[in-house]
């Protein structure tokens, strides 16, 4: 019994590290975009397109890191599209996000069809379990370098928001566009850049999906992870470091079903599949309030108004 629990816990730890990485990148990207006062709901589409482009680029070039870069560039393209459209007056960023989500998914499925069959080179992992004799712990601690890149990036982002001129510019634009304009900052340009960089990060998150875990490209690869990551940013109160913690929590929830399967509990498989969605919804209910807007929310967000 205790060994079963241990197996589940180890599998969940490994699963949390694996499953959380795409959440982490999408959440960091969305965090950056929302810090500048704009919501990009289209990151689900960016994630799927990133996964497809990464797989295709890795297949053709033979180098998975080329795939990661290509996914980032594809994500930037979608982000720049969202950013420039929302820069026009009277355009609703939430609605454009929905459209970009459908568009991104459509483009990914359109060009992704020939890549469902072939196998592309995948990203390697770093073995952190060398000190342990347990095979399950060893396999759980096969960590992808992107996981660490994400953590470093989060720390860097948190530091930049606080200590650099660029961080101040982004936060000012996000909290009060009028104040930013008075300082001579081009609000639209800043938001275009943050949305583009946010798209890059979400694209890299997609690359992780197709090149590391689950590690193949198919049309059911992401079902709502991009959307959940957007919700996660609210929960993380627009703080990059808290985004990492939240991503790990979501990763653990996503790993619950497969972990239980590893010890033979297969009942309620679909229920455990739904666990991350239910957790997201539960967290949104718990952390939102009808009376006042969420803590630390950038003042310019359309959700806040």
């Amino acid at each position: 019994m205790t060994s079963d629990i241990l197996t589940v816990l180890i599998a969940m730890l490994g699963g949390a590290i694996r499953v959380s990485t795409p959440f982490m990148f999408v959440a960091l990207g969305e965090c950056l975009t929302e810090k500048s006062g704009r919501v990009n709901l289209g990151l689900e589409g960016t994630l799927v397109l990133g996964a497809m482009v990464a797989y295709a680029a890795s297949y053709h070039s033979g180098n998975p890191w080329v795939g990661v870069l290509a996914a980032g560039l594809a994500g930037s393209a979608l982000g720049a599209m969202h950013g420039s459209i929302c820069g026009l007056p009277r355009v609703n960023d939430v609605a454009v996000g929905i459209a970009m989500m459908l568009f991104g998914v459509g483009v990914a499925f359109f060009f992704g069809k020939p890549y469902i069959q072939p196998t592309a080179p995948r990203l390697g992992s770093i073995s952190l379990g060398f000190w342990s004799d347990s095979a399950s712990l060893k396999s759980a601690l096969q960590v992808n370098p992107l996981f660490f890149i994400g953590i470093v990036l989060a720390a860097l982002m948190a530091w930049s928001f606080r200590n650099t001129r660029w961080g101040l510019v982004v936060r000012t634009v996000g909290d009060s566009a009028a104040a930013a304009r008075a300082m001579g900052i081009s609000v639209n340009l800043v938001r275009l850049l943050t949305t583009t960089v946010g798209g890059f990060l979400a694209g890299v998150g997609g690359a992780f999906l197709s090149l590391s875990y689950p590690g193949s490209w198919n049309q059911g690869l992401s079902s709502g992870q991009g959307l959940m990551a957007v919700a996660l940013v609210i929960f993380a109160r627009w703080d990059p470091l808290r985004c990492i913690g939240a991503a790990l929590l979501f990763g653990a929830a996503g790993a619950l079903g497969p972990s239980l399967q590893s010890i033979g509990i297969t009942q309620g498989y679909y229920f455990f599949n739904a666990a991350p969605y239910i957790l997201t919804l539960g967290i949104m209910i718990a952390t939102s309030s009808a009376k006042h807007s969420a803590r630390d929310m950038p003042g310019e967000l359309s959700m806040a108004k």
Partner: protein
Amino acid sequence: MSDAPVVTGASRDLIGAGSRKAGSDFALKLRANSEYIAIPLLALAIAAALFALFLIAIGKSPVDFVAYVWRGGFGTAFSFQNTLQRSAPLILTALAVAIPARIGLIMIGGEGALVLGGFAAAAVAIPMIGVLPPAFTLPVMAIFGMIVGAFWVGLAGYLRYARGVNETISSLLLTYIGIAIMNFFVEGALRDLSNPNKPSTKPIGDAYMVGKIPGTDVHWGFAVGILLCIALYFLLERTTFGFAARVTGGNFRAALAQGLPVGRLIVACSAIAGACAGLAGFFEVAAIQGRANASLAAGYGFTGILVSFLARHNPLVIPPVAILFGGLVASGGLIQRRMDLPDATVLVLEGLIFVVLLTSETLYGRFSIFKPPTAKDRT
């Protein structure tokens, strides 16, 4: 209080001006309203042009594409009836977006309400098949599907009002949860074990299927959709309820200050939306599939979002737009086979139209041709 005389004075002025130029009043209205037709049409044309360029870039002929959409969706009596059949769920899921939109919510949970509503209809039918007559069973199925759909989207509306949860995100999350719930039952407790190919509920049987509209090959869901569009148009435009909902959508704080039951309005609009989508699910089960399975999540709920936006959330405009997209969906198979394009081609076109359409929002009020002459003088 001091504002009151000024307001009446101004409105009396307007009435005076109106009666003096009663003849040109209609022309002015037409001029102002034609903007709402011209700009979406322009957006459609631009999206079509971009899509044509896309097809040329990948070495396919846009002319062929149009020809196949025409043949597969509109050209023959058979294909047009197929189109109408497919536009039925689009009408209903578009209503599921349009009604909340009028109260200021961007609700995109139609797909989930369709799936769960269809599943609920199929599930409630299981004990009644062969026991109770279809004339009793079918209405119970429809009502059950509508109630479950209404609850599902109503929940997102309630969370929006009571807890301030973003309804766009929560309704899409509920869609994923709804699909998972259906899969859970369809692969488990309610699985029809005699059908090993695809996990489904027990078939409801031919005797219990919804019939066709006499003289056509189109099921009744289409007619019900049209009737609902008309009924909901009147609800929104000609009743106190609709007026209160539109006031709330226009200015939430003003509605609150006026003492309107904002919470009940939001939940009611969301529930009506969910009921429409649930009804779409019922018709998919009782008129097309005959059982509930994963085929219910065919993306009608997502295309419905685009239909509603293109119709500017006006229930009376939804049917023609839905027929247009029904034709596109119906011709998807033909395009796939004859032009060797992936089935996602329709998705790309839809996404493109959606993006261009939302971009075109920025054009409103920019063309002086649509402005009444007086308004131009004033500015």
